[in-house]
């Protein structure tokens, strides 16, 4: 058996944590992800099955919902599922079982990297990073946008806690963008 060391998207053995002013940016590696795309003519069925899986109504346009498994809106009749990797390593399999032939499910774990921003004054960081209308963002918002030309998802958990998902292969660039914005805004 090889003795391999797991590394995070930024290459460290421990998740990177940076605090600048009132905001902390934390790398979050322990996330299982899967995408769900409803099949044509089965949109209603897949929304129902998704609601059962996440134990909450399927999120509407630009929203997220759920607890242990959380779903956020990614496009028309499409969602991304996120859950803790420790308890839901087989998230895509669980989703496929729940959704059957109503939707196509694709494993996304480790395709994305997540940075959590916590603290006060996050909107002043985000307004430098993306074009989202931050005045309209509420505690259940999830939106896709471009951050430094990188396609990202921005989730608002509470007014003092946001998550940013970006492609894992661009983790360094995304982290640099977030750090630059935090340094100039805070």
């Amino acid at each position, binding site marked *: 058996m090889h003795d391999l060391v797991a590394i995070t998207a930024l290459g460290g053995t421990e998740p990177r944590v940076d605090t600048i002013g009132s905001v902390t940016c934390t790398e979050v590696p322990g996330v299982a992800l899967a995408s769900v795309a409803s099949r044509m003519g089965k949109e209603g069925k897949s929304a129902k099955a998704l609601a059962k899986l996440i134990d909450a109504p399927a999120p509407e346009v630009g929203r997220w919902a759920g607890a242990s498994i959380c779903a956020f809106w990614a496009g*028309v009749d499409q969602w991304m599922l996120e859950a803790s990797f420790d308890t839901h390593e087989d998230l895509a399999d669980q989703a496929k079982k729940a959704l059957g032939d109503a939707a196509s499910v694709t494993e996304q774990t480790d395709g994305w990297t997540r940075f959590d921003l916590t603290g006060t004054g996050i909107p002043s960081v985000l307004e430098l990073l993306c*074009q989202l209308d931050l005045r*309209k963002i509420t505690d259940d918002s999830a939106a896709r946008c471009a951050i430094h030309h990188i396609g990202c998802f921005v989730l608002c958990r509470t007014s003092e806690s946001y998550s940013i998902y970006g492609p894992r292969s661009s983790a360094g660039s995304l982290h640099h963008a977030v750090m630059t914005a935090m340094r100039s805004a805070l």
Partner: protein
Amino acid sequence: MIINHPLLGPRDASEFTYLGDASLIDRPDWQAENASEAFYEYGYLRDNPAGEHQELWYHEAGDRSWLVVTRNTLTHEISKVELARDVARARGRSK
């Protein structure tokens, strides 16, 4: 320029990429008798209207939806934005 996305509301044009004339939705039947002529027209011939023009835009930095945007080529005024799949279905595509 702002494109009023039918689901997400007003979004900056820099989030979108432009493909071309919305007639690209009407892909000809490749098994038809006149398929080669129809594909020649589909591939190369475009109207170039001075006025209302329907065009395909892709929300690349957003929800990745395809839109049919009706834009006046003289004033750049956008009068209508629809999801391309709704337009295609209204024209009998995708059943």
